């Protein structure tokens, strides 16, 4: 730093003002985009919203079409995704943060997780199709093995085919890296003094984790989990690859039912040329955004309710 060019103070102050103006313009632009996005969708779709729109099944006639099947499908898929991705993701995070010794395997798992988070969701769709829908080609060409009565809740069929279970498991693959990384950060934020205290009192690692670290990091873990679920509920590409039917006229009754999800229905409607389909696509988007907003609000609530100060 020996040769700093001399810039007159006036020019530097001018540069500062110009840059501030550029900042305001750029940030303003981002906010404007959000405003235009929301306003245009609400203007297109709000007059299509009605109790019938929520309660009706899909239809060739846009005036009678509704989002009952995709809405219920989204709830099913998201629940399956949560029930599988959250235990596995939080468990992985606990292992990496509290149990794993520094070593080759741990390092490999870490790098692997960061790479998985960069894999496009459509690639997960292809893997889900191969692994869950077709069991890697096992029994290809022959009838699937069935367990139980197709009408009962406990009906199971191997391979899973384009079922709601295959969809949920595929989305679990998509969000798993997100859950792991968020939980790792949450666990890392717990002060080390608490751990040392627990270990000094003679507790085992698991006693320390289950009674101390996990409860202490729970608000942040939950926040990450909810954000991961809002990602899952907005994903269309993996479900598209699994082959959700264009028109689903019933809600899922068990894990093997066919299904569609809200983003897929939006995709189907948005891709059609007719203006009335564009309008119901916008109406479905409003419902989707409302669901997401309630997820976010829930996350904030959880964060505030459960947060206790730690020293």
């Amino acid at each position, binding site marked *: 730093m020996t040769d700093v060019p001399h810039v007159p103070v006036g020019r530097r102050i001018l540069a500062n003002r110009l840059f501030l103006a550029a900042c305001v313009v750029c940030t303003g632009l981002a906010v404007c985009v959000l405003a235009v996005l929301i306003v245009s969708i609400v203007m297109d779709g709000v007059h299509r919203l009605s109790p019938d729109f929520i309660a009706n099944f899909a239809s060739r006639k846009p005036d009678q079409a509704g989002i009952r099947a995709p809405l219920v499908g989204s709830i099913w898929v998201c629940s399956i995704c949560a029930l599988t991705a959250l235990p596995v993701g939080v468990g992985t995070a606990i292992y990496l943060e509290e149990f794993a010794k520094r070593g080759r395997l741990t390092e490999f*798992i870490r790098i692997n997780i960061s790479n998985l988070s960069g*894999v496009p969701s459509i690639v997960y769709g292809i893997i889900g199709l191969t692994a869950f829908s077709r069991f890697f080609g096992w029994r290809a060409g022959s009838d699937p093995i069935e367990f139980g009565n197709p009408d009962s809740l406990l009906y199971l069929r191997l391979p899973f085919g384009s079922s709601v279970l295959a969809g949920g498991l595929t989305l679990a693959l998509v969000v798993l890296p997100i859950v792991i990384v968020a939980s790792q950060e949450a666990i890392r934020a717990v002060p080390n003094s608490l751990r040392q205290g627990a270990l000094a009192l003679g507790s085992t690692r698991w006693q320390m984790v289950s009674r101390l670290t996990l409860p202490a990091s729970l608000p942040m873990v939950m926040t990450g989990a909810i954000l991961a679920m809002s990602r899952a509920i*907005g994903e269309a590409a993996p479900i598209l690859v699994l082959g959700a039917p264009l028109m689903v006229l019933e809600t899922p009754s068990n894990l093997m039912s066919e299904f569609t999800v809200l983003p897929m229905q939006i995709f189907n409607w948005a891709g059609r040329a007719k203006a009335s389909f564009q309008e119901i696509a916008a109406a479905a988007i409003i419902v989707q955004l409302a669901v997401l907003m309630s997820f976010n609000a829930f996350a904030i609530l959880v964060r505030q309710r459960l947060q206790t100060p730690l020293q």
Partner: protein
Amino acid sequence: MAQPAVAATTPAARGTPIPRSSRDRSETVVKTVLLSFSLLSIVTTFSIVAVLGIEAWGFFTGFPDKPGIGIVPFLTGTEWSPLLGGEQKFGVLPLVCGTLLVTVIAGAFALPIGLVAAIFLSEYAPPRLRMVLKSALEVLAGVPTVVYGFFALAVITPALQRASDAFGTYNALSAGLAVGIMILPIVCSLSEDALRAVPQSLRDGSSALGGTKFDTSVKVVLPAALSGIMASFLLALTRAIGETMIVALAAGGLAQLTMNPASQVQTMTGFIVAIFTGDAQANSVEYASSYAVAATLFLMTLVLTLVGTAILKRFREEYE
């Protein structure tokens, strides 16, 4: 002082002793379960590599009843027409070109704006405004990508068409801008995190030496946060390359080797969608080609992610 006293107490004085073996056993069980969970992520990676690798290999070397395409013609071919009735051509370059065109447009829109907005949020904005803007960004970040696809078709494309006759219903610019809007919050919030991680003492030093806010942010804080900012750029571009629903709706379905933003293009992800929503037979060559395209896409994003990790590791500026 306390050490010998503890050692001297008898086991009975420590309360009910828990049998060591049962504690250890449950500890081992828990640890094994957690380890197997974390190994699932490795299984996932191996499945991705194996599934894409085996299927793409079949596509390159040929099936029992059909000749293979060959890896060199696939990677260097300039024509992609797998679904047309005539001669099928499998040169992946038009798809790669379409993906890059959309990604370049998205990056040109989102990277500068996102970075400047991040500097504003981290260095200039008063705390109140910063909170409001950050929550607006969180909303943008949570919007499903299919919504941006709808936005591209319903708002951006008509606006472009009003501006110029060159734009058709499907064009790369509209899709690229929508992808740019999608990655904007990623760039902005990750860059902001990197900027805020720079210690306050650096800013104070710069101000004390007479630096203006601009001098401080651009000549001191920005270079200090550069590795994090580059990593956020790479992450955003990775997302842009892999984005599917926006391009499936707005970019079109014609694979062509062009850099003209007004023309319709097909991206790699767009082609995969076309295969899985169309009526391609599960054992046909065009169906197998989607696995080869997915493998190419996977490798591209993998390289970008690895480069991002390497940058973060290599160029991180450490402050106490």
